[in-house]
């Protein structure tokens, strides 16, 4: 990823990513929907359980190529059906059209971008960039280090092919080294069998660290600004914690340092049956006034930080892709007081200027900033008004 030198929100001229047509078939509870989407976006109202989040999830599939709620592809197929299909046409994304098909029995999804079959999933990743904002985001702050690594990985993989490829190779090498540590620890050549995965781990791990550090250096300040704008009086700080005490070196230095650490800890790793060094142990530390927001932040403060992280995600995508990503707002004001909602709304209007999908339970609750958007209603998986 190229260095993010400054925040350009308010100066970028490029048009936002804009979905024009969406086709959904047998996805979750939606049997069939073919809709034209206005450039500004849509307010989608419907009671819980009727499928408004499913529409957002379908849209986000064009970015993440998987469920936003972490379920397996097969479980996204509508009950009693064999397969689901999604199709998008869009401007401002990496492709003009994207088709996705997943069969319940199939081992892999079929992707067609601009009419050409995509054989490597990574080539279509983040093809139609979008960011989801939802109350569930609070896990970014209150959840486990794994939740925060996932945020980092999805974001950085969407902005850097190099990161994505390093991440895939790193994970491949890591599960294999761990399998050796677990299953072969008594083999005569256990150490040699573990060692052969280390060059790949050190090389790709250094790439992950270098890019994470570079992003955190930039994003810490921007996230702090967003928190302050939402009325958070305590100073926000963010930094990357890793198994390595010092991540300030160049990528080449990190490569050497990780190779050394893996070799040094190899015997200890064999005893414990796991790899103790590397970016898979990282955590993104989120702090308010020097204290961990995970443990000491109030519910409201955690929501504020989580939303700030989503806005920074959108800013990062804009910075690297040149277009504002689509904003998928999944009832983001649920359980927030009016004052906080108003501030958030102002921020979304200011910093997330892409096409917007706002999903809310009732359309008499449309917040003022969204009053001009076209309204759809969803009931039992059927979209009306489109």
């Amino acid at each position: 990823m190229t260095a993010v030198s400054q925040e350009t929100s308010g100066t970028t001229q490029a048009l936002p990513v804009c979905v024009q047509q969406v086709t959904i078939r047998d996805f979750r509870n939606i049997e069939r929907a073919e809709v034209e989407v206005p450039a500004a976006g849509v307010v989608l109202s419907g009671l819980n359980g009727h499928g408004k989040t499913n529409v957002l999830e379908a849209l986000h599939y064009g970015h993440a190529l998987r469920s936003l709620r972490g379920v397996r592809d097969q479980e996204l197929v509508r009950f009693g059906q064999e397969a689901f299909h999604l199709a998008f046409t869009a401007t401002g994304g990496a492709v003009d059209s994207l088709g996705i098909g997943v069969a319940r029995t199939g081992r892999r999804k079929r992707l067609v971008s601009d009419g050409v079959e995509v054989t490597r999933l990574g080539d279509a990743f983040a093809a139609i960039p979008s960011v989801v904002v939802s109350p569930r985001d609070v896990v970014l702050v209150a959840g486990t280090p794994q939740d925060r690594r996932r945020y980092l990985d999805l974001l950085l993989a969407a902005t850097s092919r190099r990161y994505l490829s390093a991440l895939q190779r790193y994970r491949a090498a890591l599960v294999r080294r761990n399998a050796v540590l677990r299953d072969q620890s008594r083999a005569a050549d256990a150490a040699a069998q573990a060692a052969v995965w280390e060059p790949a781990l050190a090389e790709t791990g250094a790439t992950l660290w270098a890019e994470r550090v570079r992003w955190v250096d930039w994003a810490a300040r921007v996230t702090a600004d967003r928190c302050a704008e939402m009325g958070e009086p305590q100073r926000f700080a963010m930094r990357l914690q890793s198994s390595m005490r010092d991540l300030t070196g160049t990528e080449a230095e990190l490569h050497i340092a990780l190779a050394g650490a893996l070799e040094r800890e190899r015997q200890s790793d064999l005893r414990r049956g796991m790899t103790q060094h590397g970016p898979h142990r990282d955590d993104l530390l989120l702090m308010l006034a020097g204290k961990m927001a995970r443990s000491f932040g109030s519910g409201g403060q955690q929501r504020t930080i989580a939303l700030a992280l989503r806005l920074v995600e959108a800013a990062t995508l804009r910075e690297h892709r040149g277009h504002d990503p689509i904003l998928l707002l999944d009832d983001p004001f649920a359980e927030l007081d009016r004052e906080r909602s108003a501030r958030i709304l102002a921020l979304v209007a200011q910093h997330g200027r892409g096409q917007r999908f706002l999903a809310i339970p009732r359309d008499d609750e449309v917040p003022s900033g969204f009053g001009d958007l076209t309204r759809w209603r969803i009931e039992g998986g059927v979209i009306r008004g489109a």
Partner: protein
Amino acid sequence: MSAIDDLAGELAKLPGIGRKTALRLTYHLLKQPPERSRKLAHALEVLRDRVHPCGVCGNLTEDPECAICRDPRRDRTVICTVEEAADIGAIERAGEFRGLYHVLGGRISPLDGVGPEHLTVRELEARVSAGGVSEVIVATNPSVEGEATALYLQQSLVRLGVRVSRIARGLPVGGDLEYADGGTIAQALSARREMI
């Protein structure tokens, strides 16, 4: 289970053949003269009776030793190590390599329970130890597992005083040697680097 299901079931176990194609092939055979099916069955039996790995390199052959190992014009000081016998065909088609081969029978794959002891690493060491070999070229695939296997071989063989080299990364990462074109393979071989 009917005879039709039986054959379709067997065909569907082949790579690249789904259940539908398997059924189509089965019905196709039934429409052909019976002679056609008998020839196919015979060819399959003969295949399994006659073809086996070369006793020296593991290449597939109908003789005790394969044609490459028997060829007096091949350079016996260089051994090119590959994952599968099918890779030999790809390298031979490139027409650049004049040495001998060694088939590992796969690659190190801990998730499938495949360790070095399941490959023909010891046999390769024995060939090198017997003398006369100055270089082993490791032409495993450029995947994470192929690279790890290459490293394991290098560490095992370098103790025997032989030069170990790795084909250049001209191949796309994750791409199989078997499917690479001749020019790419020739380039990857000629740009090989010593592993140190």
